[in-house]
């Protein structure tokens, strides 16, 4: 998985922008990325609590689940798009994808979120299994969703390679 990231990173960042645009700039971008990541964790945590997760008890588990979700979604976006809100909005609006990378990003993100969503369903069942405890099933769902996304994305791109015509900006 990590190799995949690195591959994406090296593939996506073809703009060395030559000027070695100052080390400080890179650092600030990195810091921004970190802040964004942390904020996304908080936002995910908030949404999970709104969905009915207990507010105080098992707060650590909930937060770790939020971190996991952000790793599957926000981290990818940060790696690919950088801390650039406009680009994010473009990618996640309808017909906004401009490259196959954007498409794969859309698919993996959607799949992991839907996986986490579906993972909540076994919780109310009275089977008394150890994996029904919050938030194990949701984490499993998110992970499986992400893996499914990784598998689906290349397949989907291969399938629709004829229809994919990206307008360049």
């Amino acid at each position, binding site marked *: 998985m990590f190799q995949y990231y690195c591959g994406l990173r090296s593939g996506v960042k073809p703009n060395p922008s030559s000027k070695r645009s100052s080390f400080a700039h890179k650092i600030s971008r990195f810091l921004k990325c970190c802040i964004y990541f942390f904020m996304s964790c908080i936002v995910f945590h908030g*949404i999970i*609590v*709104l*969905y*009915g997760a207990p507010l105080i008890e098992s707060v650590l588990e909930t937060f770790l689940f939020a971190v996991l979700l952000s790793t599957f979604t926000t981290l990818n976006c940060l790696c690919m798009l950088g801390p650039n809100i406009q680009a994010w*909005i473009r990618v996640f*609006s*309808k017909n906004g994808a401009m490259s196959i990378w954007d498409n794969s990003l859309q698919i993996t993100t959607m799949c992991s979120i839907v996986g986490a*969503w579906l993972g*909540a*369903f076994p*919780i*109310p*069942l*009275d089977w008394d299994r150890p994996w029904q405890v919050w938030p194990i099933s949701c984490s499993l769902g998110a992970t499986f969703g992400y893996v499914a996304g990784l598998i689906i994305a290349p397949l989907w791109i291969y399938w629709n390679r004829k229809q994919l015509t990206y307008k360049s900006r």
Partner: protein
Amino acid sequence: MRLRSGTFACCCVLLEALGVALFLRGFFPLPVRSLPRREARSGPPAEPAPPGAGVSSNWTKIPPPLFRKAVIVLIDALRADFVFGSKGKQFMPYVTQLVDKGTSHSFIAEAKPPTVTMPRIKALMTGSLPGFIDIIMNLNSSALLEDNLIWQAKTAGKRIIFYGDDTWVKLFPKYFVEYDGTTSFFVSDFTEVDNNVTRHLDTVLKREDWDILILHYLGLDHIGHISGSNSPLVGPKLQEMDKILKKIHLSLLSKEGEASLPNLLVVCSDHGMSKTGSHGGSSEEEVHTPLLFVSSAFTKRSGSLKQPELVQQIDLAATLAIGLGLPISRNSIGNLILPVIEGKTMREQLRFLHLNGFQLIQLLQANVPAYEKDPGFEHFKVAEKSHGNWIRLYLEENSSEVLLNLGKKVLKQYLESLKILSSSLSKQVAQYDMYSMMVGTTIILEVLFLLLLSLPKALSSRAEFEVPLSSPLFSLMFYLICLMLCAVHVIVCTSAESLCYFCSISWLMSVGVMMLISALMCIILSALGKIFMNNKLPAKNSAVSNSSWSELDVLILAGTLGHVLSLGASSFIEEEHQTWYFLINTLCLAVCQEICRHYFLLKESDLQFSTVLKQSVENFKETGHFKQVDVPACDSKLNKFATSAELRKGSEKWIGLASPWIILICCRLLRSLNQTGVQWAHRPDFRHWLTRGIIEARFVYVFVLGIIFTGTKDLLRSQVTSADSKTKITGLWEIYSGLVLLAALLSRPHNLPVLVFCLLIQLIMTRCIWTPLKFDAAQITIMHYWFGQAFFYFQGNSNSITTVDVSAGFVGLDNYVEIPAIFLTTFATFAGPFLWAIHLLCYLSSEGSRHSAAMGHGCFCYALIHSIPVAVYIILVTGLRYHLFIWSVFSPKLLYEGMHVFITAAICVFFTAMDQKQSQKIQD
């Protein structure tokens, strides 16, 4: 026949309600009954005749009573561990001592759900299992017509005195020589209600003019309802009960000296209580009740008791009947509790068991056509034969050793056969009237298909379509199907083994239903044919419609399907509120995404627009050299206008973006207000109970009626004088506000925040989401339906009968009046869905000027979205009718769904009435 889609949906829902009613009638079976009580009863059976001629037993009468006087103390909601557990040791020392060392027999009696007072009293006194449907009759407990212990005692000339819950007085009118009923209506009172019973005790215990004394204490149940089973109030109440029991027992003992027969004290309970203090369900705490027989006839216990034996609650009726020397009531399916008669001779014991078995066999014969094949019957015959042999040996006076051993063997045989008989009889209770169920299901399914088939046309912009009525009605097929169904009806009804409701209604009505079914069938077929004909011509339509699906549509479809599928699992039914909370959360997030897209796309177009504007201004400047003075002013004005518009748009945008989050937070707060369901019910919530004033409530009723009256007046005026639609909209809003006021009056005090948040969310939704984003009527209807469902659970309802707030039916009433109480309870229970539906009506009619077909679409969607789960659920329940949880989980949900269908029908009729007026006005 041309029909508007609203009218069409209304007809469909009304038909569906008919189907659901038929299904419910078939699903909830009547309890096992033998012949009516008044009919001549064959005398009690004699002892089984010993084989061989010459010898015969001369014991043909009912055996004499074992006890002289009996005192039955029923403590409402006394849980088994309140007596046998640590609480009992702490708070009930006298009873504990009786249980451990006294002359007593103690058992844990298992009550069958529904664990509600009236069915339990019936079960205790008749020994039969009241059907599930009895719970509906729980409020207006009319006189019990079945054969029961009290009636038997009365006819045997026993004098019965009763003090306690007035349910008994209603159930057994005129049976008591003296009674004083206390009402269970004032739940917050738990001292007076018991003192009113205890105050009679001293005088009654001194008197000699009674044979049976029944006491029903309600205080403990009230404490449970107010503050749960772990309340500090429980301990003192148990101590009070202990003192009362001690007093009764000592006084009974003191009287025994001169009498030949001992007295009996029975301590029992109708049901237990759950951890939160409520009852009605089937958890172990609610089902297990103590049962204590205390009499000097029993041998003294030595050493402390281990775990008390488990018996059935219905066994009490048979045991008491034997103990008091009465015939066992006919519908009893209980077994004699053997330890109680253990002190008697072997001959008497066998005789008692034979009586019990004979009564069960009679009941079996009355209810099962093929009773000879029942294993219990065969066992009983074998036992009877060996009983006869035993009697011959007894009369021939063989050695006692042989007699005892043989007698024990016969005893064992009898006990086994009794157990089998009573289990096969209780299975009989769960027999379904499959034919009525099938007919109901057929109607519901046909209606659903019809709705689905007409979906594309009904949601078209004209909102009206052709229902092919005349051609199918005069086709050969209609008559053929009709004839076939009638033939099936005759065959089924003549060959049916068990009772069938649909066969017992008049033949005219059943033929009418048959015609309805076949007509619906033909209409569906012809509609199908039409669709196929149309499909061949233009085959592109589907592709176009598919591509225009937004994420919201996908979510709505997936949510509906997911909810319908989840109905198959009992835990999902218990936790259905979780499903709805989950769905509306997701809906809010999807709406949020939609809003983001809307505003950000709008921003881009705005940018383009302003650049165009600026360009034009530039052009204007360039061309208008001669008006150079005016240009700057014009420019600044334009800029000012643009900035103010932008500012307004900006604030609107931020409010719009924030609104889904506000709604989400509201929902999260409401969710923790009432923890319903089963698994997480132990989480704390803020429920408490208050009594409400009667006069104030009546005052509010007057206002509600006034507001609704003005609303109706406006509506009628708008119809009669065909004034502008504004009058009608005001009328609708007035009715809506009247209903909100009524809901506020009826709901429990801690539920008022639910109502406030409901209004807030409706406001936010209307202002910030639906109106700016221009959703179509179908989407808005489904969102309303979802929110209505979620609010049903936010109110604290669940899919079990326990949570129905019966006290709402008494607001502003002095005593129980049937029709207003039913109406008020229904409204209070379904306030959430009802308010959202009326809000939908108001919203759509005020938007009606924009889109005339909106009302029809809304009505159609509302009917459809509720028909799908009902139809699927009914099929599921039919399939799962032998499931373990059918009575505890699935049946209450079925009752809720059935009630909801009737409410939906009412809403759709209201919709159509409004729509009709509107269409008339358009035509004018």
